[in-house]
């Protein structure tokens, strides 16, 4: 009888162990790594200036990689690695100076916007300037006197329909005097940014109302006070005819109505590996001189949402989740190896599945959704190799 009781306990323990292992196991076994793709870029491509577009004239899919900083050019490739165009940026840079963002609509429609100065240039595949636009005359020509600085998303797909989207940051008002006290001034500036529009949509074809501002008070969706310091890189993307936005301060994915720039839906994202979303902090006398240091620490340690894609083949969304890490990890292993997972969801934002990825090998932030599936960058530890080739591995889920 004692033996029977013991065996029952053993069986129950084993069963429990199996249950725990089963319930803790991720969906990573469902990932299939397919072939690798190599592009002879001749420079170290960056996720900020890379992406994909479909040429309407021949319905062909092309990848683009640009280096506006050192190589000062953009290269277009077929998915099989064939180089199609090599576009020099010399003419464009003469006009806009430093590049903040790139949008490629077609081989002959490449849009570059400037850092800080609100300039935009349209170039063709030969690098010739087709159109030069001083966006200040459109955006900052308001009677109220508000001045906005426009910047681009770090993600691909910043256009929807005939419109291009920018993160709008309030900078100053011509008609208002600002407090001279440092803290008072920062609080004033912060409050203004809080209450000002987050987005600016420009439709250059619309002759009557080409500019629309929207999404005022965006930060109040996840902070309680306008004295909190919020500063984040713009992360928005237009996929599946929707505009998606997220920030390091929230675990929610915001679906924005692109017609009126209002929040249509908030999708909370959770991960089995990490807490998502940083906590904002109030500006006060004790931290006034180290806001940037605290902010940098938050940026490098907090769990956050990053890339967001839609796969038209299986009608699923994929969001990349960077995990919360110790402050020293980025310095130790480098930003390309920080841990992340990928969460998939169906087109109605349900049926979540999370996949853990070997972040030592695959650099998650540099990934592109192609018609053949998701491709993730496989960087080398050899700098010369990275300067010559940009390599990816194709994944199937």
């Amino acid at each position, binding site marked *: 009888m004692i033996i029977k009781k013991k065996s029952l306990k053993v069986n129950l323990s084993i069963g429990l162990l199996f249950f725990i292992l089963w319930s803790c196991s991720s969906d990573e076994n469902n990932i299939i790594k397919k072939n690798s793709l190599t592009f002879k870029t001749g420079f170290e491509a960056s996720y900020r200036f890379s992406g994909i577009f479909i040429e309407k004239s021949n319905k062909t899919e092309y990848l683009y990689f640009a280096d506006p*900083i*050192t190589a000062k050019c953009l290269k277009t490739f077929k998915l099989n690695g064939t180089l199609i165009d090599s576009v020099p940026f010399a003419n464009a840079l003469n006009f806009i100076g430093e590049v903040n963002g790139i949008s490629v609509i077609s081989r002959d429609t490449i849009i570059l916007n400037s850092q800080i100065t609100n300039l935009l240039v349209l170039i063709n595949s030969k690098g010739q300037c087709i159109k030069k636009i001083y966006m200040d005359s459109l955006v900052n020509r308001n009677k109220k006197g508000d001045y906005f600085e426009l910047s681009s998303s770090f993600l691909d797909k910043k256009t929807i329909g005939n419109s291009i989207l920018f993160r709008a940051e309030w900078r100053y008002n011509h008609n208002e005097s600002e407090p001279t006290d440092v803290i008072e001034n920062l609080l004033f500036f912060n409050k203004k940014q809080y209450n000002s529009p987050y987005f600016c949509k420009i439709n250059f074809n619309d002759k009557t109302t080409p500019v629309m501002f929207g999404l005022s008070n965006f930060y109040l969706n996840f902070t309680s006070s306008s004295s909190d310091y919020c500063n984040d890189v713009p992360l928005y993307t237009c996929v599946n005819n929707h505009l998606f936005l997220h920030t390091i301060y929230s675990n929610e994915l915001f679906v924005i109505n692109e017609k009126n720039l209002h929040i249509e839906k908030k999708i909370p994202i959770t991960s089995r590996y990490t807490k998502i979303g940083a906590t904002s902090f109030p500006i006060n006398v004790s931290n006034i001189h180290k806001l940037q240091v605290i902010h940098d620490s938050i940026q490098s340690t907090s769990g956050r949402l990053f890339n967001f894609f839609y796969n038209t083949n299986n009608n699923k969304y994929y969001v990349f989740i960077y995990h919360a890490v110790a402050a020293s990890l980025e310095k130790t292993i480098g930003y390309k190896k920080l841990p992340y997972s990928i969460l998939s969801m169906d087109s109605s934002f349900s049926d979540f599945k999370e996949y853990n990825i070997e972040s030592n090998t695959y650099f998650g932030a540099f990934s592109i959704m192609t018609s053949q599936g998701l491709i993730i960058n496989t960087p080398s530890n050899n700098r010369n190799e990275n300067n010559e080739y940009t390599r990816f591995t194709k994944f199937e889920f």
Partner: protein
Amino acid sequence: MSTHVLPNLNFKYWLSICLYFTFIACSDNAKQNKIITDYELITIYFKEQQKFQVSDSIKTLFVLTDYGCMPCNKNFAEVMVKNLNNPSVLFLILAAGSNIDASEFMKSKNKVFFDVPENVKHHLFENSKVFFFKKNKIDTTIMIDARQIESQIDEINRRLSHL
């Protein structure tokens, strides 16, 4: 068949063997405990990773990373470019060319070396900084900091003018 495996040795013989092994163990331990200076770490890195011997004639090492304040790193890179022809200065570029303009460094035939941060096994090159050497030691280190960038660049230029 003899049962004596070991020879019949006297006390002096055993003592000398013990002393010999104690000496070997101590010297090995001393080697392991030798403190490697930061300057040596730098020279070892250049010798092993870059196949370059840092000689006494090298008085300054610039390290450019893309960690931390990016506008500061860009300002720092401009100071570096102005000193590319200085024969007593060494340059290590760890910043990606997609973040900071590295074209002038790539063109230069002088003492410019490139690497990725992951290949550096110590913490000395984690931020953009400049080392000033004196008598095979690090005399001064200036780590680029957003709050002091202007005065730091003045100080770097002042020191370089005295090389």
